């Protein structure tokens, strides 16, 4: 499979395949001799040309970040299989989507109800955390199947707020 990655404003393509049980990587059309091992979810030990790297992928707070060799970068992943439509540059998700709380906090407003038809990017729930209000948006255009939170309710990071189909 092939994905596109944006890292430090650099666009790169990564192709992964498995032959004889071994993973093979082609990065930007060039074969890469990489030996990755997953240590724990999001934590990888990667050997490239004898150099040992530890890379960590984290999504805390919403954005995707990768840290390697003592530096941390914001990153984006585009999977062509999921790239059917673009809206305002954002990638729209497909299928039944759970809307997840990106941080612990309190629900201060619920902006949509079950049965509502929403556009991708429409605000669904406002969560207040550490006195900051954060709008959680719909990942896709569709119908709210379930709204699982009410105003005043406390939520933890990762809690499902709503389901959009």
């Amino acid at each position: 499979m092939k994905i596109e990655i944006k890292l430090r404003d650099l666009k790169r393509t990564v192709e992964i395949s498995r032959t004889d049980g071994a993973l093979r990587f082609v990065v930007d059309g060039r074969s890469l001799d990489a030996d990755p091992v997953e240590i724990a979810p999001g934590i990888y030990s990667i050997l490239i040309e004898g150099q040992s790297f530890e890379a960590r992928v984290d999504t805390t707070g919403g954005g995707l970040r990768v840290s390697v060799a003592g530096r941390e970068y914001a990153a984006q992943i585009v999977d062509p299989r999921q790239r059917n439509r673009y809206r305002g540059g954002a990638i729209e998700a497909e299928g039944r989507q759970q809307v997840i709380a990106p941080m612990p906090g309190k629900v201060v407003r619920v902006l949509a109800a079950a049965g509502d038809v929403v556009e991708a990017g429409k605000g669904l729930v406002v969560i207040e955390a550490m006195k900051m209000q954060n709008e959680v948006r719909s990942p896709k255009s569709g119908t709210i199947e379930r709204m699982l939170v009410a105003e005043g309710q406390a939520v933890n990071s990762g809690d499902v707020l709503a389901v959009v189909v």
Partner: protein
Amino acid sequence: MFRKILIANRGEIAVRVARACKEMGIRAAVVFSDADRAALHVRLADEAYRIGPAPSRESYLAIDKVIGAAQQARCDAIHPGYGFLAENPAFARECAAARITFIGPSPEAMEKLGSKTAARQLARAVGVPTVPGTVEPIEKLDDAIDAARKVGFPVVLKAVAGGGGKGMRLIEQETGMSAAWRDASSEAQNAFGDARLYLEKYLIRPRHIEIQVLGDHHGHLLHLGERECSVQRRYQKVIEEAPSSLMTPELRGAMGEAAVKLARAGGYANAGTVEFLVDTEHNFYFLEMNTRLQVEHPVTEMVTSLDLVKLQIRVAAGEALPFTQDEIAVRGHAIECRIYAEDPDNNFSPSPGKILARRVPAGPGIRLDDSIYAGWTVPNEYDPLLGKLIAWGADRKEAISRLKRALDEYYAMGIRTNVELFRRILNSSDFQNADVHTRWLDDFLRQPASTVTPGDREQSNADDAAAVALAMWHISRNGSRDGQKADAPSLAASEWKLEARREQLNRAPRE
């Protein structure tokens, strides 16, 4: 010696004090709020007592509940840590009334030295230099303008009850005075319930250097040298070190003597810190005294080979200090960084949450004083300090390289931390040359972070590693749902992932 000590605190300092108790054969009892049932200080203690709901006012700051827990546990002493009730004379008095030893100074000494204005008056009375400014709180705006003219602009307005930069305003010239007066007093009222302000001359490129003092109840009072805490973000210490690069034996002697003189004048016993600002001409000015153990006490411990918490406990139990001033020697160099759950991309706002995985740095010269573990959720309700990472080296250069090495080993996934900030600071030439002052970091943070130089082989391999990691991560989360299944790698679902899925399943049906 005490049989059992109640630790009236939480977080890394509660763990630190419990460790000292255990090493001394004293039972360690702790208190906890509802938010801290699973906290490390509870897990490591010999005894633990619930004292109320999460808000500090109803738990860690509730004097009657803390004393009640100490009585229930039959403790003969209370260690307050720092923050919460540590500098509250009323609490020290309640301890005495309950015949429980408060491990710290007397309430009278706390009042004389802990209040900024009272301490400055005492300093002037005994000939310890203070920053030029007003001795008494200022009544009204006109008086503030008069005082500012007298010492010369720029000046700073500060809250009498203040700390941590709240209720504090810099005024460059007279026209800015009335707005600053209004803002500072309303901020002080909101933060401390006390709107009173005083005024000080604003020093150019000052360094924050503080002297650790220690006294027993047998008339001995001495100092353990200095710590430099000039790297501050908005008046909050970020990095502390000992010794100070600015220090000469003469300056250390003079500042140490001044600190001891002031503490003695206030009738001080136990551990305390006298804070000074030092200007470019090596003039020093008394700033304030902290009548408690400091967050940054480990750097002093590392260079003096002393255990300050054990010494606090010993002198509180009536023992005499086991050494004299001449026997205090400073060896090597130590640097501490305060690791916070903060989001560097969001103006360092607190980033509470569940810690999914972490690694503890170790090896020569490294000390980590913290209170977190994988699986623990950093609560919303308290200061987001996760812990302190301290490096010791034979000299400052080795301490810096050890700290950098340890920071590379450190991670806590699931929350954001300010670790990246320390890498930037430690890699800067200003910090390496010790060319810093109390406003250096605020200036430094306004500059863009240095960009990596592309083309370098190691960097390009690191970029490739990042790309591979992102691809692996993407597959492990999304799998391969379409027709490409045949040639896509199938990564075995680990126990971790299964557990995460189970959690999701448990969460979903909440209708």
